[in-house]
């Protein structure tokens, strides 16, 4: 039944749609702070949530985010921090050395009292390989923002467990999956993978079927988990 209906409800994408999408999607390298300031026109074309007609999936470009909060941070930290918005979602890119202070101020001064998530992204081709992302929410302001910092392999971040206790497990998961260390974490050890496992699976150089053979043989008594 569904197959008969499919052509009627989902006409094939128009040709005019493709070039626009392709052009924006051209660069395989994910967005980088340096590219963020770019074309004004593309941004004004595709504002999210405008009218009932959905906008075409042409690549919107992150624009700058202006808010009293951002102004306060800019006054304080100047170039150590960049404020951007993409598809209606605001985020800050903060220098690694400032991250502890900024997160603490976000909680105390800007009322972001709920840390939704801490996660990371691995970009092996970049000089600074990791992006660590905090997703924050403020009950008082009903606002959601993201804070992002960029760090290299071997560097570490201050732990936010003192700021939001929920970061305990979340940071452990980031450590488990990416091998990023958080200084001052009360008990930074693996959480989803067993202790003694070798490797951090969400790094890009860790293969999809890769596993710690030695661990599997030693602990499970089988030749391979595959």
């Amino acid at each position, binding site marked *: *039944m*569904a197959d008969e*209906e*499919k052509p009627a*409800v*989902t*006409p094939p*994408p128009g040709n005019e749609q*493709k070039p626009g*999408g392709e052009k*924006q*999607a*051209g*660069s*395989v*390298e*994910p*967005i980088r702070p340096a590219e963020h300031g770019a074309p004004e026109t593309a941004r004004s074309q*595709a504002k*999210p949530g405008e009218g*009932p007609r*959905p*906008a075409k*999936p*042409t*690549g*919107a470009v*992150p624009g700058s985010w202006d808010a009293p909060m951002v102004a306060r941070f800019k006054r304080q930290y100047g170039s150590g921090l960049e404020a951007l918005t*993409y*598809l209606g*979602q605001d985020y800050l890119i903060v220098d690694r050395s400032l991250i502890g202070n900024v997160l603490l101020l976000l909680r105390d001064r800007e009322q972001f*009292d*709920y*840390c*939704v*998530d801490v*996660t990371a992204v*691995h970009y092996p081709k970049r000089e600074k390989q990791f992006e660590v*992302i905090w*997703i924050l929410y403020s*009950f008082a302001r*009903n606002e*959601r923002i*993201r804070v992002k910092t960029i760090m290299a392999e071997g560097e570490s971040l201050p732990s936010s467990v003192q700021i*939001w*206790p*929920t970061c*305990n*497990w*979340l940071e452990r*998961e980031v450590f488990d*999956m990416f091998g990023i260390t958080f200084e001052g974490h009360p008990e930074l050890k*693996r*959480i*989803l*993978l*067993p202790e003694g496992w070798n490797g951090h699976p*969400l790094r890009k150089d*860790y293969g*999809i079927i890769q596993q710690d053979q030695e661990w599997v043989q030693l602990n499970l008594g089988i030749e391979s988990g595959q």
Partner: protein
Amino acid sequence: MSEASKYLSQLQVGEGEQTFLDSNELIINMGPQHPATHGVLRVILKLDGEKVLGTECVIGYLHRGVEKIAENRTYTMFNPYVDRMDYVAAVSNGLGYCQAVERLLNIEAPPRANYIRVILTELNRISSHQLWLGTHALDIGAITPLFYTFRDREEILKIFEKYCGARLTTHAFRIGGCQYETYEGFERDVKSFCNFVAPKIEEYEELLTTNRIWVERTKGVGVLSAAGCKALGVTGPVLRASGVKWDIRKAQPYANYSEFDFEIPTRQSGDTYDRYMVRMAEMRQSLRIIRQAVERIPEGPIMAKVPKVIKPPPGEVYHSIEAPKGELGYFIVSDGSTQPYRLRVRPPSFVNLQALDLMVRGQLVADVIAVIGTLDIVLGEVDR
């Protein structure tokens, strides 16, 4: 030396040493194979007699690397995988994922699709709460509610089965809308289900709400304050039972929840009993939403114009929904290719489970079972 004195000398306890029976602290292992942990959760309990001094959760037994799998599948191919996280609320998982990708593509599902989505998601919320109630009550010792809730939950699963052919891992939605049009008699089935289940919820309440054993086992057990909830990132019914009127369906409405008239049930004391009351009230509110949605469901297309090959422009987006267990979020990073560069799931069960230690400290060991039940975790989602 005689045999008896040999044994006696072995039993001698030196100064400051304690025998097993004299020692106050006892480490007990619970799980991972334990009927009351709702899956493969292992909790190491440190006890003083019957009092819990502290706990440590050992998780990961069900870790399948969902986030890694996502990076190696196209956006469309990954869609069914999300059903395997919170497998008792698969529809909610699918809704969150589809909407996150839609947001990345900057498209919106058509109105009719949104109505179908809301109806199925709310039905799923009821079924998830029913399963929670049955198993939670069973853990505490009330056996009857399990039969009642599973009997009634079956009706929801039948609707799912008729709609998409699957009962649990439904894969009901597609990026851009729904794949299936509703079947002949869908509205009638949903309406008759609403009429059928409303008195059944009263029936569950009759069994438990004023039941003296139930009240004794749940009132004042596992109290979590509003401040504690916020600090620990605990969301969903647990947060609302602590007096915080917060529900993403109201705070930052998604799909078309802003069109419906419903309330956010809250309670004040944040104990196991209040969390029970909040979930009971939520089932009624879900029925209220379903009734409105099924009356107003418009005609029209069920899929937005989505390219055959989904290739979102480079960028990142976070989208979260109010799953039956709390805030379920998807953070997706696109590099402009057909596969997500990174997909992070913010699982409510994982974050809520972290509160277990705080909630059971100082309580009795039997209450650990009650608190694990009241947190309503699904290990498929905790471990992903």
